[in-house]
């Protein structure tokens, strides 16, 4: 079965049981092939990811209400239980995703197809939504000629029963593929039933289970099942470890019949699964493209729904929605004050404009000025920072500078946009002493927190040679220093601070690459690079 057959089957199954399966993610770019896939979907209603609550849930229809004298509510997008076609779902904000998920759970949506045009692997449909949709449709290669699956519903309302053993198999498979969410096996059960109905059977058999698992599981898998050493080249000791686990698993002999299925699914696992896992360990932060994070304000940016408020001189009035909210009350108010014949507006009608914008970015340079770094590359690092500063100035970024050496870290320059000051402080940066990496990270973390509360989006750029040898409490203790640095990095990751690790040692330092992993940050080793090269790499890594 090739990917186009699988696509056809997925579409057929969803048509049979939209409520049980939720729908599908269609990860394709705009193309004739995608149009062919979309033409198989019947009666869908298009929804852009920018839809507001008013449009979604409906609200008071002001003009109809006023002209009729009765309350007329406009119907929301969801009023007739549509099958939704969410366009550009990779740009769907989390709150809309949450509302759609709720609507799916409550049965206000018959089914949902999320078009996903993401180019990068981390540009995807929001996970809350993806969890509820059974299939991912991602056909590869050329579309076969005359590809036109029959997607008709099931008017007869047939039902298929499923045996306990098959449920066991479905749940076990999910566990072995490292799928945490229990929605996945439930969706697989529904898919197996649908497939049985499709083949006019009233009992689910093992083929149905296999097809269901191969359609629902591969894109959700977070681990390659234990006996997978042959397909994935692992480092020797890890492979050994896996082998051990694998044998212990099979001696348990818990699921002998599942192995064949595992093999079938393994062939369908995305080829970059291992690479993806290495990049984003569990609990990874949500990706945010662009420079800064989102921030609500009342001055500029993209408009979002207005809210009630008082005019305090800092915010702007949304005239249209103010008039809209005042309109229904006019008869009531006129009765109270008959002497006025103009529009009567009260403070409670005032609606304020709100906008959401990308916030400014703050680059926090954390520079290792210890003896070992000073010997190697401190000057080059300084030069690189100066070049970066020029770019930061051009993109209106804020800059802060922290250096660490001896027994602690020091904030050399609080967040500023002043280029001159930064350069001066940087030039005066002395070198020498131990490497209190953990202190540097801690101070950077504190500064990042402060900056966040002021509405900046901090990014930490760590330049070091990585040989931490001073612990948080200032004692020279190498293992403790390394452990402290790790836990500070974990904390930064937890706070969701973006970071970048630059190794300025003479040779790439293994522990720094690991630190970068803990931080969830890109790691750049720069043996023998000059300032210019460093800058190029950094700006490339930051631009992403």
């Amino acid at each position, binding site marked *: 079965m090739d990917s186009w057959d699988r696509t056809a089957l997925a579409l057929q199954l969803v048509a049979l049981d939209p409520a049980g399966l939720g729908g599908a993610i269609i990860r394709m770019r705009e193309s004739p092939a995608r149009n062919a896939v979309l033409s198989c979907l019947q009666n869908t209603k298009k929804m852009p990811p920018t839809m507001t609550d008013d449009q979604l849930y409906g609200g008071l229809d002001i003009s109809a209400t006023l002209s009729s004298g009765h309350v007329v509510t406009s119907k929301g997008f969801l009023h007739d239980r549509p099958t939704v076609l969410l366009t550009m779902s990779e740009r769907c904000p989390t709150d809309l995703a949450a*509302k759609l998920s709720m609507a799916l759970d409550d049965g206000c949506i018959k089914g949902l197809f999320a078009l996903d045009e993401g180019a990068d692997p981390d540009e995807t449909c929001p996970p809350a939504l993806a969890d509820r949709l059974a299939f991912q449709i991602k056909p590869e290669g050329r579309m076969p000629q005359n590809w036109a699956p029959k997607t008709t519903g099931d008017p007869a309302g047939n039902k298929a029963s499923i045996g306990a053993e098959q449920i066991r198999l479905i749940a076990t498979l999910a566990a072995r593929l490292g799928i945490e969410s229990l*929605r996945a096996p439930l969706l697989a059960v529904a898919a197996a039933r649908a497939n049985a109905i499709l083949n006019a059977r009233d009992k689910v058999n093992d083929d149905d289970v296999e097809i269901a698992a191969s359609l629902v599981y591969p894109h959700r898998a977070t681990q390659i099942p234990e006996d997978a050493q042959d397909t994935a080249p692992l480092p020797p000791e890890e492979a050994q470890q896996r082998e051990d686990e694998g044998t212990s698993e099979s001696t348990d002999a818990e699921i002998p019949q599942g192995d064949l299925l595992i093999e079938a699914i393994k062939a369908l696992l995305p080829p970059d699964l291992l690479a993806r896992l290495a990049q984003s360990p569990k609990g990874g932060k949500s990706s945010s493209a662009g420079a800064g994070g989102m921030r609500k304000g009342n001055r500029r940016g993209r408009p979002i729904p207005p*809210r009630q408020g008082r005019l305090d001189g800092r915010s702007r009035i949304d005239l249209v929605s103010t008039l809209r909210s005042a309109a229904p009350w006019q008869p009531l108010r006129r009765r109270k004050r008959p002497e006025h014949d103009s529009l009567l507006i009260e403070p409670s009608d005032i609606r304020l404009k709100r906008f959401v914008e990308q916030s400014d970015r703050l680059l926090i340079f954390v520079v290792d000025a210890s003896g070992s770094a000073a010997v190697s590359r401190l000057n080059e690092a300084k030069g690189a920072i100066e070049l970066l500063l020029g770019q930061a100035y051009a993109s209106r970024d804020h800059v802060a500078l922290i250096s660490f050496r001896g027994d602690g870290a020091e904030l050399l320059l609080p967040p500023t946009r002043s280029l001159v000051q930064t350069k001066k402080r940087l030039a005066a940066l002395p070198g020498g002493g131990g490497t209190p990496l953990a202190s540097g990270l801690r101070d950077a973390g504190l500064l990042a927190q402060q900056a966040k509360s002021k509405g900046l989006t901090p990014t930490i750029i760590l330049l070091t040679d990585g040989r931490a040898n001073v612990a948080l409490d200032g004692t020279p203790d190498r293992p403790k220093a390394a452990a402290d640095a790790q*836990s500070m990095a974990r904390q930064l990751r937890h706070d969701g601070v973006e970071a970048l690790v630059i190794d300025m040692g003479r040779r790439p330092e293994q522990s720094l690459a690991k630190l970068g992993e803990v931080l969830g940050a890109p790691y750049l080793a720069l043996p023998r690079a000059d300032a210019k090269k460093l800058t190029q790499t950094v700006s490339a890594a930051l631009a992403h």
Partner: protein
Amino acid sequence: MKPFPFSAIVGQDDMKTAMILTAIDPRIGGVLVFGDRGTGKSTAVRALAGLLPPIEAVEGCPINAARPEECPDWADTHSGKVRKRPTPVIDLPLGATEDRVVGALDIERALTRGEKAFEPGLLARANRGYLYIDEVNLLEDHIVDLLLDVAQSGENVVEREGLSIRHAARFVLVGSGNPEEGELRPQLLDRFGLSVEVRSPQNIADRIEVIRRRDAFEQDSDTFCKKYRRKDAAIRKKIVAAHEALPEIEANDTILSDCAELCIALGSDGLRGELTLLKAARALAAYQGDATITREHLRSVAPIALSHRLRRDPLDEAGSGARVMRSVESVLA
């Protein structure tokens, strides 16, 4: 669709305990359920609605008042009869506007009859019951502010459009969310009495059982619910009995000092930690039919009552739940 029966939920004991405790003593103040997708957060809350014992309320009263004289004067409750009704469990949808939450002028009556009348919002309907917010961490800030204010005072004050109305709004906040999608503001975090972290069951047998039950429920919910009706009723009976026994449960001085010591050891801010810990322990003692609170009770409720009140410690790799347990072991040794 019918809610999934509470007693049919597999595992998730912390979550179930927390919900039962707030049902026994609503003053504990709410439950926060945080966890990954597909762990059964929403299912449990909706199941709770089916489990709660009914309350007595005046017929047609918008705030579910217990006695006719407590009905607000803006509501026209004609009958004045007191009837049994299920405990309200009100959903606060993410897209809810301020008007819908606190209530506003009744637009229909203003338009057609030119009358000024108050149309109560979700807070009124949730009085004496539960207010459930799914994805609580994604709630708009200004709605959160409103909720904080009302949850603290137990009273909803509406001053708008020439209306000046206040009514009782005492409810148990139940929130659920996925921490990956956004943090919860610490002010709101503190407002929840108990917090639970849930994850999918880790052993395969449990997972299979979850799938089996859920599938059976979806195929034929009536038969399935009938099967668990008796178990649900048993829990409900225990909750009612425990609620009545609550004032009788004693807490001696050693327990009080244990509570205080525990909170000091953990460095939780304010005194809400101690108070919640004590209330939760008392509710647990009542549920288990004990006459006095023992250290054993403290030990079981400490993680859910305290873990969300700690300052974050970057040097600790384990979760805050483990930190609470460590302190419990050392203080209650």
